[in-house]
């Protein structure tokens, strides 16, 4: 039985890498990938805690189910995100977010 802590460390590392990546990448695609890392870190946390609180008689699969949902939603979000990126690319011939300020007021 693997204890909880390593999972949490890996998860925290994933979050840190994701946030760092999201903040530093210039490419919109890189940012999307980093966000995927953050989501997966959260999913890993869910699975880990789910296993941690499991008792012998009542097995809980709630964490796994949440993780599956999170992955599905992440996939959907990625699809939407990629479509937006493609749209932006078509319009401005770039995916460099420093060059794009469409959301400015």
């Amino acid at each position, binding site marked *: 039985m693997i204890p909880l802590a390593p999972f949490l460390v890996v998860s925290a590392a994933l979050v840190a890498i994701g*946030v760092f990546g*999201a*903040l530093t990448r210039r490419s*919109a695609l890189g*940012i999307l990938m980093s966000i995927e890392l953050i989501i997966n870190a959260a999913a890993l946390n869910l699975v880990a805690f789910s296993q941690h609180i499991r008792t012998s008689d009542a097995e809980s699969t709630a964490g796994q189910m949440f993780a599956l949902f999170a992955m599905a939603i992440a996939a959907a979000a990625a699809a939407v995100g990629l479509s937006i990126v493609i749209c932006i690319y078509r319009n401005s011939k770039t995916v460099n*977010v*420093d060059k*794009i*300020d*469409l*959301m*400015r*007021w």
Partner: protein
Amino acid sequence: MDFLPALIPVLPLLAFAVIITNGRRLGWSACLVAVGASLTSAVLAALVYSRVLLSHETLAWSFEWVRWGETALRMGVRIDGLGALMLFMVTVVGTLIEIYAIGYMAGDKTFSRFFAFVSLFMAGMLGLVVADNLLLLFVSWEIMGLCSYFLIGFYFHRPSAAAAGIKAFITTRIGDVGLLIGMILLWWTAGTLRFDELLLAVPALAGLGDAHVDLMLTAAALLIFVGTIGKSAQFPLHVWLPDAMEGPTPVSALIHAATMVAAGVFLVARSFILFAQFPAALTVVAWVGGFTALFAALIALTQNDIKRVLAYSTLSQLGYMVMALGLGAYAAGMFHLITHAFFKALLFMGAGAVIHGFHHVQDMRRMGGLWGKMPWTAWTFLVATLAISGIPPLSGFWSKDEILLGAFHESPVLWVAGTFTAFLTAFYMFRLFFMTFTGRQRDGEIHAHESPAVMILPLVVLAVGAALLGIPGSPWMGLWVQHSLDVPAYALAHHHHSNLVMGLSIAVAVAGIALAWLMYAPRPTIQPARVARAMGRLYTLSLNKFHIDEIYAALIINPTRALARGSFRFDLGLIDGAVNGMGWLQRALASLKGLFDKWVVDGIVNLLATIVQALSAVFGLIQTGRVHNYLLLASLGALVIACLTWWNMG
């Protein structure tokens, strides 16, 4: 076919509508529309007349106009012998006048408008004649009043014509108010305004012997007669008629012969049942008529304007008719109305021809010697003058003689007055004739000429009428006209023929003509100026029309004007002052409120706006539109929440 008589007034009304809306397009042909309409009316009237004459029935046709509760108001036409004769006279004389006007008004800029108003006038008069109730009669009566205003003031750019129009309108309006109140009283007392119902209702009410009802009905009769006084220009509301000469001459002929003034007499004849039941009213009618006849004849003696003499002679002749009605000689009065319509229309149109040919000069003192220059006009004029003077066998003699006969039997005083008036009539009419047509022209600068054929033709037709129309009403033909009127039993005054009355009437007429010859013939035996000096004050009184106009001016017109001026000042000073003061106050208050609004209310709003603007400038700084900035902020936010959670748990 029963509604056929209703078409008679509708045709001229249609002509009016067509001309008034298409006047510019029609131009000269407007007169064809008008003459066509009245000619058709005349044919219809002739048909109606022959039918009424043959069958002695009363044509009636009516429809329900309004109904409230049990009471229904019906409108319609009712034509008895009297109405049929009137219809015939009005349409024939009216058509002749319109034909004459084609020549008289030629070249006038407002040619088509003239025919429009004349058509409306005809429609009013015909509507009045065919009306089967007092209400419709009143409506037509008012249409005529309006048209008289338009037509008398036809040359409205002349101040005197405009004033004459207003004078006619207001003076007759005084009478109209009387008529209206009389109608209300009658409706109140008898409950109907329909003539056939009144014929039954009034004797029944009079039979009750109720003093109150009798008083009401007598008052109604007298008030209706006030309407007649106004419309038929009896004393004391006669002042408008001489001034009505300001209108074009065909209008004078129309007003004085066929329509306006006849309407008043016709009104009394129509509502005669009221008068017949109440002798007090009848007496008033007789005396007003007799007085007017004499009074107007006295004024006519000294006038120098050719149309004015004729105007006063009209007043005088109307006085005869009214007197006849008042004396119960109903048929004689109406007979005189018909004959008078013919010879007076002829006189006016003859005078019009003289004026037309004499370059619009109306003063008889400048005329003279026109016999040779205007033979047609002179001959027809002579026929009319003889007719009005009462020379047999011309029409005027028979009708006037009938009236005098009635007066002889009923009231000797009025008979004397009437006979004297007959003398005066013959005198002043031949004074006019001699001054205009005989001798030499006194003003040699004017070159008189005969009128065109379109004006002569109506004169000749009317002259034939004026000469022969009396025969059917003469004793030779057994008073055929008078009997054809279907005179109701209550108005039938059978007077025995009197040679004294007839002989005296001829004698005074001849005497009048003789005196006129002595004074105004080419070589007068008696100098008119000396007679005038001898008469002294009487002469000036007559010349100034007994100062009636001046008396009215002093007693009524000037006080009314002063009152109006006073009211105007009051209005200008006090009422307008109050209103303006109120306005000023409101403005001052409003400007105060404006300041408050500008600085306080607007200040708060602007302040809010300024604050929001400043805040938005601050917050706008973080909205860079760069994904990285947002991500950083989101991450920092998450970090802060995490720290807080951790701190809370710890």
